[in-house]
């Protein structure tokens, strides 16, 4: 076991010593999480609304109401808001003209322009905007009624505030009937991208790193290792453990860095780590297989990266599985990525428990067992060739 640990440790050291990994292992995944989250991630909470209009009582009141409802509100010029809506960066654009602001201040009827987006969740967000605006109308009517009854404006507002604090109004929950929107409910802006990139890069790094197995044979280190008091089984275990350690390191790094930098929520961290560990075992088995079947490290690197990208794309790392057609989504589950994606979705979005992710974990464990067995068998044969 000591020999296996020593081999695994030196494999990790070699991995960290490779300067090209500084970008591809440490920076590139985070850049992708940032880009994907910025471009496509939801704002979190209950949707995003971009408001155009000068600073006014009406603007402030709507903003406060929406934010109370956990809607992300941004302010921009009219053209910028239209662009945000057109490009899907916000769900709803709300335009408050100076005339509307003045009318609101004067207690006159107010006309507001709303431009809904086309993405999933827009209708739910639009409903929240309607609710916020309707709430303002109700409050204004109540104040007007009290003032009409001879109560001063300030006292009327104070009385309404006291009444609101003293009573518990019925809570309105806007449920989007769209199943896809429901699938992504509860995700932070970077959560989906972080999970997808984790899966992509754990596998990609493992497969690309399979070349070190070839180098170990070609350099004669494998021969020297077996000329030491190290059994073939210990050497095989060491290399399998080394692949696993590298995959786990890559995944743990992405989890930690995205949690710190992007406040990504990984849900129950122990369950997430369990998913990562089983997925890393699958990646380790695949890396051993490639690194032992091929004798040319250039070819292994090319095939590893190509295969990693294809499996990642098919497994939901580039486009969410929920957006796949049903048939393709079924096919996607030939990849370990899709099963790990499902498990992370359960944990991150639905507070899934161990029981919820057991089916996905079971498939991942089975895949890992098959690939590690094949990889070990193949590596044993390639070690014989190297001697």
């Amino acid at each position: 076991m000591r020999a296996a640990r020593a081999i695994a440790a030196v494999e990790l050291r070699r991995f960290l010593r490779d300067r090209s990994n500084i970008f591809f292992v440490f920076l590139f995944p985070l850049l992708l999480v940032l880009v994907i989250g910025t471009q496509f991630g939801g704002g979190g909470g209950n949707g995003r609304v971009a408001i155009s209009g000068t600073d006014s009582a009406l603007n402030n009141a709507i903003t406060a109401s929406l934010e109370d409802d956990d809607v992300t509100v941004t302010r921009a010029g009219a053209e910028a808001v239209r662009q945000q809506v057109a490009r899907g960066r916000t769900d709803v654009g709300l335009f408050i003209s100076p005339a509307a602001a003045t009318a609101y201040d004067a207690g006159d009827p107010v006309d507001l322009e709303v431009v809904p987006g086309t993405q999933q969740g827009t209708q739910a967000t639009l409903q929240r905007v309607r609710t916020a605006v309707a709430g303002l109308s109700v409050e204004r009517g109540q104040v007007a009624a009290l003032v009409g009854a001879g109560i001063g404006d300030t006292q009327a507002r104070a009385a309404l505030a006291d009444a609101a604090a003293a009573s518990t109004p019925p809570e309105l929950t806007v449920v989007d009937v769209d199943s896809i929107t429901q699938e992504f409910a509860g995700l932070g802006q970077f959560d989906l991208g972080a999970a997808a990139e984790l899966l992509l890069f754990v596998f990609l790094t493992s497969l690309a790193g399979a070349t070190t197995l070839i180098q170990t044979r070609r350099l004669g280190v494998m021969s020297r290792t077996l000329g030491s008091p190290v059994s073939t089984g210990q050497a095989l275990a060491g290399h399998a453990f080394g692949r696993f350690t590298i995959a786990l390191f890559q995944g743990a790094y992405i989890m930690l860095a995205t949690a710190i930098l992007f406040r990504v929520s990984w849900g129950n961290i122990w369950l997430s780590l369990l998913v990562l560990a089983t997925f890393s075992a699958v990646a380790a088995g695949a890396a051993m297989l490639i690194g032992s079947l091929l004798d040319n490290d250039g070819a292994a690197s090319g095939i590893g990266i190509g295969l990693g990208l294809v499996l990642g794309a098919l497994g939901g790392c580039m486009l969410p599985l929920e957006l796949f057609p049903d048939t393709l989504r079924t096919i996607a589950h030939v990849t370990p990525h899709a099963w790990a994606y499902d498990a992370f979705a359960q944990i991150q979005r639905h507070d899934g428990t161990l029981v919820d992710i057991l089916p996905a974990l079971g498939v991942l464990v089975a895949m890992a067992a098959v690939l590690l067995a094949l990889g070990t068998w193949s590596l044993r044969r390639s070690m014989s060739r190297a001697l």
Partner: protein
Amino acid sequence: MLVARDLVRRYGDLTAVDGVSFHIDPGETFGLLGPNGAGKTTTISMAAGLIPADSGSVTVAGEPMGPGEVHVKRHIGLVPQDLAIYPELTARENLMFFGRLQGLRGQPLSRRIDEVLEIIALTDRAKDPTKEYSGGMKRRLNIAIGLLHEPTLLILDEPTVGVDPQSRNAILESVEALSVGGMAVLYTTHYMEEAERLCDRIAIIDSGRIQAEGTRSELITLTGGVDHIRLAGAGQSAATQAALRALPAVEQVAADGHTLTLTVRDAPTAVAGIVTTATGAGMTLSEVEITRPDLESVFLHLTGKALRD
């Protein structure tokens, strides 16, 4: 220390090693001398327990050796022909890794690393990645890894291939020092001079078989005390060769382009008659060289071909 009996190893139809037997005593340096492809590396791979023999046996320190005999491998320090080091790691990191594989740990390992770095004169470069080393430095580190756990038998497979003369000399001096220290050494090479300089006994191996074995002087007597005269020049022909073969002192004539190599008795005495005969038979000589017996001659005598063929 090591006894190899009737080792046979086949690769498909090719018999790489065919009935090789030898033994090495403690403190002895034993050489396997032969050209590339003679079966040297296959022989030491079986001796080191890297590959199994198809038949025959190896014992090290009285214990049977084979791929599964993990504990017996502690007796052996293996220095493979390839530079079996990680180029991206430093010398110290490489030594640390291979030391751990040998079961060394903690302070004893650190101390031993310092010692071998001193021996191979790499203490100052110990923290540099080995990819920045010269070929000679890498070769020295390759040997140091084999010495790290102080084995009783050191197996070196052509350790001077591709190194500059200065590093080569340093390596040979190190190996000489090891045998003085009581370590048994199995040394393979295709450089005759290295075998002559280092080895107490030498086995000449070719085509997977040991052709002869003994001390240098014992092997040279196998040539029957014959010398060689090399004639180089233009105009050599079948008639020239026939004329030279007719001389009583000439035992054999081998032609290679513009060069004739003659196996003769008592070359200093015979050379004048040979030169006269060669020029008389139409050969214009540009060079005449007399070679007294050495291991190269022994190899030529035994196999009919040059050592570096």
